[in-house]
């Protein structure tokens, strides 16, 4: 029976320390009963009106999950999670929306502005009803480039923008629940083919209970006319967020996709266990960028999101390319290894990462580059920045299989320490199973020196401005790989997440 929460039409600000996105939106929601069993999975599947094969798939995943154990190899520590104490489904109730931005609490608008969501998307997120045909006024443009947004609130997708225009180009961009209704054959063909149901504890849990996420299909030869973006937010208390993203770039196509994440500040920990699957066919290219800013917990390390995410791209076709760019500043715990399977000959995988940890955050992140095809190339640039009492680990695997003739990898892994109480760790695994593979690994660890900060301050920068400047210089190589309009946002976020990191 769905529980109903009180409706309060204001945004309540909780003590947020440095976290700027810690507001809770109190709205009515539909929830599944607490805990996990076959009935909850049937409930989720029924809510989504899913075909029988999808329900069977979920139930199979759930049976499998019950036999699995949580992995313990990562360098992160947290108390045991009680999986029966969580809600696995929560959806905002549909109501009539306000008619224009003027009717919305200015505080909410201000918060969306801080989140960096373009105005047109704000309207959609807030449920403003606009007359049909009023879409092309260009308010959704950032720096002249349009971005289509899919917003996922707790478990379900609440809004997708620019759908019509994308449709003209033949691009499908919709919640995965909708794709299951409208294009079940595509979902069935690709779902679970990159991250199998049995892949790992968290991915298997996701397979059983995922409630929504984004689905993208770009037809052969099409260059997606705009950036696609998903905005995830965990809102409900004790609710796990298990979104599932599936992106397919058919032969010769191109798509650039960005996800952004925030959550309210809460004392208890929230679980986020997403799965992202990318499939690039012959000559296709997928660029996937993440700005992850889940609530990191307070100054004492209380609360914060547990981020256990499985992201993997399959360069299935020859000459295909997948590139991951991530800016990780949030979460109490990050357990995340966006990877590339370089199956197609001459395919290419890239991983660019900035992982910033402050306070009591723990990050164990990196990538896997699995070279299966001939002449495959991968490139890894990882910049880890540890401040406060945080621990920041890079963990990466580069593997060249027997048939991967002339596989090449270059890895550069730099760590920067701020202060005396943090730690940076690098754990590279390298496997070469054929003699023609060339694998390079470079790593450095450095500290922001007092002298450098003093030099900047002597020129007029405050201590925090000085740290932000030095860090921005440190991560420049990776920032450059973000889409232009998000690079600026990312730069600001870096400054915010390092506040209070020194002195």
């Amino acid at each position: 029976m769905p529980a109903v929460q009180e409706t309060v039409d204001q945004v309540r600000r909780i003590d947020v320390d440095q976290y700027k996105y810690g507001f809770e939106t109190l709205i009515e929601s539909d929830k599944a009963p607490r805990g996990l069993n076959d009935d909850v999975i049937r409930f989720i599947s029924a809510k989504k009106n899913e075909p029988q094969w999808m329900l069977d798939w979920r139930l199979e995943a759930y049976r499998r999950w019950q036999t699995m154990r949580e992995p313990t190899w990562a360098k992160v520590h947290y108390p045991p999670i009680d999986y029966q104490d969580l809600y696995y489904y929560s959806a905002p109730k549909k109501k009539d929306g306000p008619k224009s931005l003027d009717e919305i609490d200015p505080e909410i608008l201000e918060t969306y502005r801080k989140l960096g969501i373009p105005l047109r998307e704000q309207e959609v997120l807030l449920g403003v009803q606009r007359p049909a045909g009023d879409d092309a006024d260009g308010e959704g443009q950032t720096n002249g480039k349009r971005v289509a947004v899919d917003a996922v609130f707790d478990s379900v997708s609440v809004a997708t923008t620019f759908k019509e225009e994308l449709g003209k180009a033949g691009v499908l961009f919709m919640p995965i629940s909708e794709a299951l209704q409208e294009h079940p054959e595509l979902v069935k063909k690709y779902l679970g083919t990159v991250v199998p149901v049995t892949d790992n504890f968290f991915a298997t849990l996701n397979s059983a209970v995922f409630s929504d996420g984004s689905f993208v299909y770009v037809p052969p030869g099409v260059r997606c006319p705009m950036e696609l973006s998903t905005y995830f937010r965990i809102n409900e208390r004790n609710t796990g967020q298990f979104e599932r993203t599936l992106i397919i770039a058919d032969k010769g196509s191109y798509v650039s996709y960005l996800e952004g994440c925030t959550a309210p500040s809460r004392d208890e920990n929230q679980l986020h266990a997403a799965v992202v699957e990318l499939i690039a066919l012959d000559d296709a290219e997928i660029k996937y960028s993440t700005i992850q800013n889940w609530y990191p917990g307070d100054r004492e390390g209380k609360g914060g999101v547990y981020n256990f995410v499985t992201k993997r791209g399959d360069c299935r076709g020859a000459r295909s390319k997948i590139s991951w760019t991530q800016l990780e500043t949030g979460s109490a715990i990050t357990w995340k290894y966006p990877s590339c399977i370089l199956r197609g000959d001459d395919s290419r995988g890239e991983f660019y990462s900035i992982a910033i940890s402050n306070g009591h955050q723990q990050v164990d992140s990196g990538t896997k580059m699995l070279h299966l095809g001939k002449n495959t190339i991968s490139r890894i640039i990882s910049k880890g920045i540890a401040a406060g009492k945080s621990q920041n680990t890079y963990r990466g695997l580069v593997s060249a299989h027997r048939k991967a003739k002339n596989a090449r990898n270059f890895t550069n892994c730099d760590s920067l320490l701020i202060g005396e109480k943090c730690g940076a760790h690098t754990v590279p695994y390298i496997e070469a199973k054929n003699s023609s593979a060339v694998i390079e690994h470079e790593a450095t660890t450095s500290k922001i020196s007092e002298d450098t900060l003093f030099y900047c301050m002597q020129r007029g920068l405050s201590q925090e401005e000085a740290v932000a400047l030095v860090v921005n210089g440190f991560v420049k190589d990776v920032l450059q790989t973000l889409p232009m309009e998000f690079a600026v946002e990312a730069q600001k976020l870096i400054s915010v997440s390092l506040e209070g990191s020194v002195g």
Partner: protein
Amino acid sequence: MALLEIKNLHVEVDGKQILNGLSLAVEKGQIAAIMGPNGSGKSTLAHVLAGKADYEVTSGQVLFNGEDLLAMSPDERAAKGMFLAFQYPLEIPGVATMTFLRTALNAQRKKRGEEELSPPDFNRRVFDVAAKLEIDRDMLRRGVNVGFSGGEKKRNEVLQMALLEPKLCVLDETDSGLDIDALKVVAEGVNRLRSPERSFVLITHYQRLLNYIIPDVVHVLSRGRIARSGGKELAHELEARGYAQYQEELAS
């Protein structure tokens, strides 16, 4: 009123007394040279004026334009017009020199409640000063001091000085590591900045720099205090006779 007034300054580093009752006044528009042997406290003085941590002022006072300088953070001092040209300028990889200059200038202007400079105005000013210092635009695009030669680093310091328009410029051993051509370029840059409104403190071991930047007064620093003051001819005397006599005078 003197622009800078140091009264009976005592400073310790790691429990060791470095400045030992130093008193000194620098008038507005004056160029004061501070000369002294190694270990006399020259660089300590420069760092204390700029506000570097780890220097403990145990007694004494420093007034800058009549205000208590020691109570201000380094960035506040900078915004009030205190500039230190470093003996060893720091490298900041990944931060273009242009970005650094713009960030610094705007940070100071913001602290003073002034408008930020528009990008075209800013660029014009930088390119103008850079040309006079023989700094090419390629250097401005490179990371701050990264891969710069010793001479380039010092010219970059003078560039920042010219751009930030401070009231007091403290030059800490700016001549060290410079060949004669580079020294001339730097000295010309400094001379162009001379004005009745701007004072300089030239900290140097050698008289050489003072051939190109003519000081109004010369102070001899020895064992943490001013041992003697005089006109520019004092520098020549030091060059000829060395610092030995001052160390003995103080010791006796």
